[in-house]
């Protein structure tokens, strides 16, 4: 455990000494809860339609696929036409794209970003490395199946799919959202412990709360 996270005794300005437990005092330990859809079907459909039409992607490129997302912003492919845009902070993002091999160290950061996104949120895995480990199938460092650690809605196959494939992937995602079965956030909340045990088996120095709000 890092030094700055250990429990330490601190003396206040008025001389009173007390314990500071960083992991409890600095972080909220609540676990995520399953979020029910809107009270009436019509409203939920409207919301789903709006969610599908304006997908905000988190600018977090993990592997070699990130380079494929750049052309989507250029005039040739122009993802803005589909209401898609890139947001720098996970708070405002709805879609997390894991583009390529995911080392254990990056997985820890991806989990933190994913948990900081607001539900409903979706995950797309790009390339074969996220499906079955790809060419790093025997590496000691990269994970082999993404959906053990994060609820993945959609895989786009290819050892780095081209931008057209990405656009097609987005369209399928739009259809899934409109159909209402892109509830990755709720599945994550539902079997939260299963995901956590998987993650903890791979990430050894777990120096953060269970759910990073």
């Amino acid at each position, binding site marked *: 455990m890092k030094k700055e996270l250990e429990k330490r005794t601190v003396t206040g300005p008025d001389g009173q000494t*007390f314990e500071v437990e960083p992991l409890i005092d600095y972080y909220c330990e609540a676990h995520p809860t399953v979020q029910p859809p809107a009270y009436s079907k019509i409203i939920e459909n409207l919301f789903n339609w709006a969610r599908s039409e304006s997908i905000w992607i988190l600018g977090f490129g993990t592997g070699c696929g990130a380079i494929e997302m750049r052309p989507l912003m250029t005039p040739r492919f122009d993802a803005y036409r589909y209401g898609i845009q890139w947001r720098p902070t996970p708070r405002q993002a709805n879609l997390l794209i894991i583009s390529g091999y995911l080392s254990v160290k990056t997985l820890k950061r991806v989990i933190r970003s994913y948990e900081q996104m607001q539900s409903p949120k979706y995950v797309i895995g790009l390339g074969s490395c996220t499906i079955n480990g790809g060419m790093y199938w025997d590496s000691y460092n990269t994970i082999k199946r993404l959906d053990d650690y994060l609820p993945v809605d959609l895989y786009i196959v290819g050892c780095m799919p081209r931008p057209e494939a990405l656009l097609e992937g987005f369209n399928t995602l739009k259809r899934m959202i409109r159909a209402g079965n892109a509830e990755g956030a709720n599945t994550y909340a539902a079997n939260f412990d299963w995901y956590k045990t998987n993650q903890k088996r791979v990430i050894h120095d777990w120096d953060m709360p269970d759910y*990073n709000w």
Partner: protein
Amino acid sequence: MVSPLFIIAAPLGTAFFISLFSKEKQRLAFLITLAAMLLMSLVSLHWVFTYLTSGPVDYYTAGTLPPFSINFRMALPEACLILLINLTGLFSTLFLKNSLLRMGRLSMAVLLIDIMSLSGIVLTRDVFNLFVFLELMAISTGGLVLLSEDNRAPAAGLKYLIVSQLVTILLLIGIIFAYHATGTLNIDGLTVASLTHSTGGKLAFFLILIAVIAEVKPFPANGWALDIYESAHPSFSVIFSVASSSAVLFATAKILSIAGPEWLPIASNVGIITFLAANLFALSQTNDRRLLGYSSLGQSGLVLAIIGQQDILGDHYLYVAGGILLAHAVAKAGLFWMSGIIKGRELTDWTTIQGHPFLIFSFATFIALLIGLPPFPAFYAKWELIHSLAGAGRFPLLAMILLGTLLEVGYLFRWFGIILKRKPDGPGVLQKKRHRKRMVIAATTAVGWGMGYLWGTLSPLGHLFHATPLLFALSFLLLDWLPARIKNSLAIAGLVGYFALQYAGYNPMQLIFASVILIGGAVILLAGFDNTGRRIGFYPATVLMFAGLIQLIEARTSFDFFAAWEILTVGSYYLILRGKQSEPHALSYILFSLGGAFLILTGFSLAAQGGYQIELQMLGTVPQSVAPWVFLFLALGFMTKTAAIGLHIWLPGAHAEAETDVSPMVSGILLKAGLYGLMLLLMTMGKQQLYGVELTHMLLWIGALSALLGNLLAIFQEDAKRLLAYSSIGQMGYALFGLALMNHLGWLMAMMFVINHYIYKSMLFLSIGGVARRTGTKEMYRMGGLLKLMPLSFIAVLIGIIAVSGVPPLSGFGGRWIFYNAIMTSEYRLPIAVLFLAGPIAFLYLFRLIHTIFLGQLKDEHRRIQEAPFWLIVPQMIFVALLMGVALVPGVALRRVDHYIGQFFPNEGGGLNWSGMTISSDFGYWNPVAIMVVVGVMFATLLAWLLFVNRQAQVVKQFNIVYAAERPYRPETTHFAWNFYAPYRKALGFLTQPLVTRFWQTVTDLLHAASDLFRRIYTGNGQVYAIHLLAFVVMVYLYSKGL
């Protein structure tokens, strides 16, 4: 009635009688000396009463007329001086008991002869007899110097004797040739025979005069006196500095009466040079007795200068010279005796008296006596001296006297600051159980205050002690043993009661100022209930400040105004000095304030045109030749108090280092005194031209610049209180700008600022003080995230910054609205551009204040902080309510003042009409209630909607932030507070160069360097001192030739 000869015969007889005693009966001999001294003092007291009424009476020895007999003249001045000499002698013998017993009965005899010779000098009208008594004094002084334990004393004694030999030669030749020229030795005879018309007579008179002046220790030739002061027994130094100086000064006055007025300039010039040089050298002294020596030389130089002004002072001459002489005498005696009971000789060794409140009180009294602060005689004396000098047009002398006094203020208050604030260490321990000596000091303090009262009754301008607020403040001195809470409620009751009594008599403008001072002061004093214990010295100082302030508002004449100004300065100085590291800042505060006060004094003396005071309303009728100068001096004086740019360097330190509940008082209320002065000045004198430059235009620029630079400097401060202090400079700049606009709405804006600034500045200072007390630090980057722990302080600061920034719903916007309407009709455009920039800059430091303290990351050690103490919160909440009130209904405060100001600008119109809820001017309209309602409704609906949508929002803690997928390291590294506006400093940093501070720093460094350089002329060698005396004689002779 006892003949004056008694005062000569009695000590002589006792002296001889004592020497008959055998060795063992020392104690009896001491008692007899004491009895003799007591008898002489009683007799002289009796003389003072008899001669109060009857005129001067001459007594002839040997029964014949003067040419062949010595005549003594006894009149009121002589009686008073003899009383002073004998009282000093009595107290000194009391103080010298041990050394006298150690040295044996002969030293008592010498002491008696010394006192006798001094009385003789005062009484005798015969020149040769004067010589005899001078020589007696010289010999007895030589003898008494050996009383001191210091082994350097004999060397000093020898130097003194060498110099007295030279004086003897000069005096004897002078006397014999005067006798040769006129045939008589009597002073009246010499005047009748007009000694100074014949050339030989002129030379003889010059020799006598210069010999007597040499005894008064003039500037180049007073090295020997300093060595005596430093090494002799302190009680003897009292006799030397008080008794012999006064006697010799009176002798000089008698000698000068021989010659016509053309000889007076010699005395005044020698005197003023001695006064300035002594005070300048005192700046770089570290030994306490040598410092007191320099100070007494300075004071006797001042009295000599006053003797030189006999021609213009007329019948007030005795009152003025007497006032300063007696004040100097009491103060010097007291200080020397205090140095007697302290072992260490360094200034810092005096810190041992920190534990004794009475000794501190007497030290403060003696300093006030010396400088001439209000309740004491030197205040009246200096007031009349300066007025007569201004009347006669002798401005260089006036300027030099004030500069010398300012130097005196410098080193005396520096010493006071060292005593109170430095940590007591080293050998300066107080001598144990010296009740006798402490009784003597107590008696001197009592005499000092008594003289203050006496001079008040004698003064034609009104008695200071008759002002009830001052009496109320001084009564707190006696009540200081009560617990703090009782005194606090007493003070609040006093303030509110006085307001209830007096508010009917005020005009609307005075009503606003009085309510800010009294009611505002009472509300801030509520915070005083927070401390337990007795809080020695706080309440007298606070109530003194408030007394000064309210007397300032009620003052009708220039004398009352000036007295009130100095009272509030002194009171606020003691308040500021209570802060922990406030010593240097309090010193710079008192220097600037008293410098400003002296400027105001010059201004009033110019306006009085030779009279002794002027009605404040009559300031407008001052003739055009002198009016611009009066305006300039008064404006500069008032601007030291409102800390306009250039005179502002005292404010940040003074307000930041003061105690929690002192900062709001000093910042919220005290700055208004300067504003009231400026308001008064502009009301009575209107626009003034000096060398073609429009003075109010200059004020406009100064106001604009201080607004801009005040706000700009506030941005880059790391210390919260310093930030608020600089923001006060900015706000005062705004008010000054409003005043200088010289139109109806400009003044209304200034009044609005007076109210607004008081409310939000006191609130902000109280809340920051509460936070600083809880977190133990004032550095903003050390705090952070206190919103959840100190919610009430947060609300106060939030409302405060919204008001200060001028954002619509709150009262700040009112000020800005009136400002916009005011500048529509002003004829100067450029300063307005500077002020437009100053407006938004206020946002920067306000946001920095609230962000770095309440928002951002909470540090580990602050996790268990409670809310600020209850009694600090109560006044803050009152201020929040007040702010809301002024925001919603500004008319209550401003309507009557608006009409009152209207009468000063009859033709321009420009007033506001307050019909219904909308306030409209010639250009625009403003409906505060409507704005508040609209903003409130919008705010409430949106908040309700947001709360409804986010009803199950997840409350998270401080590290749940999106930190680029990483974990924040520690709260200290994630709280952005240090060097908050780095890019702004890169862009506009060049404006915040500390030019003014550097300027004042070089001024003080120059003074210290000059003082350290020129004091080297006292090389310590006796022969060199003799050469100094001869050179002095030659120089004065050449100067007198030129006359």
